[in-house]
C-alpha cells in the first residue's frame, strides 16, 4: 500500500506542477495579455482600469450645482481625517435654518484612496476620479476645496 501511495503522491505533485506551468506558458504565448502601460509615451491613449482610484472629486452640473448636503458623513467615515466639512446655516424660502456646506476641504496628501467616504455619502455627492498626476512643488497645493466657488446644492437633494 505504501508504494502505491508514494507513487500517487509523486503523480499528484507532477500534475499540480504541470498545471502551474501551463498557466505561465499560456501567458508567455499571448503577448496581448500584457498589462504594462508605457505611461509617459501613451499619455493620450492611457487605458486605466475601471476601479483605479486617483482622488476624491465633487461633480458639479452645468448650473454649478452639487449634491452635497453638508451632513459630514464623509468626514466621520474618513480614517485619517483627509476630509473636513466647513458648514454654514442658510435660511430657506420658508424661513427655516438649513445646514449647507461652505467648503469641503480635502487633504490629498493624507488621503489613502480607501473609498470609505464615497461609500458613506448618502447623496452621492462625491466620487473617485481617475486623475493621478498629482505632483506639485508646494505641499499646500495639495489641500483642495472640492465645491466650486459660488456653487449651491442641487434642487431636491435632501
Amino acid at each position, binding site marked *: 500500500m505504501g508504494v502505491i501511495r508514494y507513487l500517487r503522491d*509523486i503523480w499528484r505533485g507532477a500534475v499540480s506542477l504541470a498545471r502551474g506551468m501551463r498557466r505561465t506558458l499560456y501567458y*508567455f504565448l499571448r503577448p496581448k495579455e*500584457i498589462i504594462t502601460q508605457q505611461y509617459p509615451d501613451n499619455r493620450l491613449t492611457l487605458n486605466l482600469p475601471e476601479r483605479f482610484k486617483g482622488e476624491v472629486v465633487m461633480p458639479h452640473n452645468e448650473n454649478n450645482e452639487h449634491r452635497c448636503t453638508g451632513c459630514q458623513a464623509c468626514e466621520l467615515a474618513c480614517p485619517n481625517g483627509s476630509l473636513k466639512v466647513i458648514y454654514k446655516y442658510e435660511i430657506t424660502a420658508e424661513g427655516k435654518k438649513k445646514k449647507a456646506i461652505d467648503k469641503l476641504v480635502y487633504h490629498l496628501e493624507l488621503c489613502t484612496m480607501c473609498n470609505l467616504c464615497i461609500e458613506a455619502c448618502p447623496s452621492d455627492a462625491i466620487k473617485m476620479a481617475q486623475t493621478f498626476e498629482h505632483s506639485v512643488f508646494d505641499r499646500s497645493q495639495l489641500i483642495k476645496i472640492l465645491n466650486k466657488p459660488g456653487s449651491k446644492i442641487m434642487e431636491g437633494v435632501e
Partner: protein
Amino acid sequence: MWSFQQAAQQIHEWLSERMSAGWALALEMVLAGLMAIGLFAMLGLILVLMERKVSARMQVRLGPNRVGPKGMLQTAADTLKLLLKEGLTPDGADKWLFHAAPIMAIVVSMLLLAPIAFAMDFQLWDVNIGVLYVSAMSSLMVISILMAGWASNSKYSLLGAMRSGAQIVSYELSAGLSVLTVVTLTGSLQISEIIRSQADGWWIFKGHVPVWIAFVIFIIAITAETNRAPFDLAEAESELTAGFHTEYSGIKFALFFLAEYINVFVLCGIGATLFLGGPMPFHIGSWEGLNRIMDWIPSSVWFFGKTFLLIFVIMWFRWTFPRLRIDQLLNLEWKYLLPLGMVNVLLAALIAIKGWHF
C-alpha cells in the same frame, strides 16, 4: 555547406603549413581560449536578456524595452555599469579568499565548457570520460560558493553558503544517476560516442520510460545544482538579501552572475547531448529521406536550438514555482528523486541487457 568542423580543420592546416607543430598547437589553444571567452561574453549578454524577457512575458509585463531596439542592448549597458562600479571589500573579510572565490567560480565554468560538442566533431577536448568529467567539475561549483560565503564575514553570506552546500552535495547524486541511465544504454562515457549512438534516433525516443524519468530528474537536479529558483535558497533575495554574494559588487559580482548563467548553459548543453542528441539532427531509424532532409540543417543549429530549449524550460520553472524550504528541498531529493533514480538505473540496465530499446 559551412560547418564548424571544416573551419577548424582549415585553420589547423593553414597554421601547420606556416609553423612547427608545437607552435601551431599553442596558437590553436590561444585561439580556442579566446573563442571560449568570447562565447562567455555573448552567452552572458544573451541569457540575461532572455531571462528578463521570458520572466516579463510570463508575468504579463513587457521587460526591458528602452536601451536599443526592443531593449536588446539592456544587458550590454548593465555589464558596462558593473565593470565601472567600485568593487568593495568588506572590513574583516578574508581578503585572499574573497578575491579568489569569483575567479574560482568562473574557472570552473570554463573547465566545464571543455567537453561540450557545439557541432558535429567540434569539441575542445573529446575526453574519454566526458560525462564523468562534467559531473566532477560541476561538483567543484559549490566550492566557490562556500569560499565566498565564508570570506565575506557576513551572516547572510554564511547562511547562503551553508544552504547551497547541503543542496549541491545532495542533488549531485540525482544528476549522476540520471546521467548514468543514458550511459548504461550507450555503453560509453565519451561525448562523441554518446552523440554517435543517437544517429538513428535520440535517446529520449529510443530509450522510452527510463529515459523519460531520467530526463525529468536531470532537469530538476541541474536546476538545483545551478542554484536557480525554485531551488535558489543560496541566494534567496527575500530571506538572505543575496545569499553568498551579498557582499560582492562590481566586476566580482559580475563574475558570479556570469558563472551562474554559463553553468546553466553548459549543464543544459549536456542534457541536450545526453537526451536529445546534441548536435545530432532529428533522425528516425532508417527513414533515409527524412534523415537526409534533417542533415541539411547545420549541426550547430541543432545543438544551440536544443540547449536553448532546455534553458527556456529551466527559466519556465523559475518563473512558475515558489521557492522551496530547506527541509522540503532535502525531502524532495532524498525521499523522491534519489530512490526513483536508483530504481530507474536498474530499469535502464534491464532494458539495455534485454535490448528492449529501439
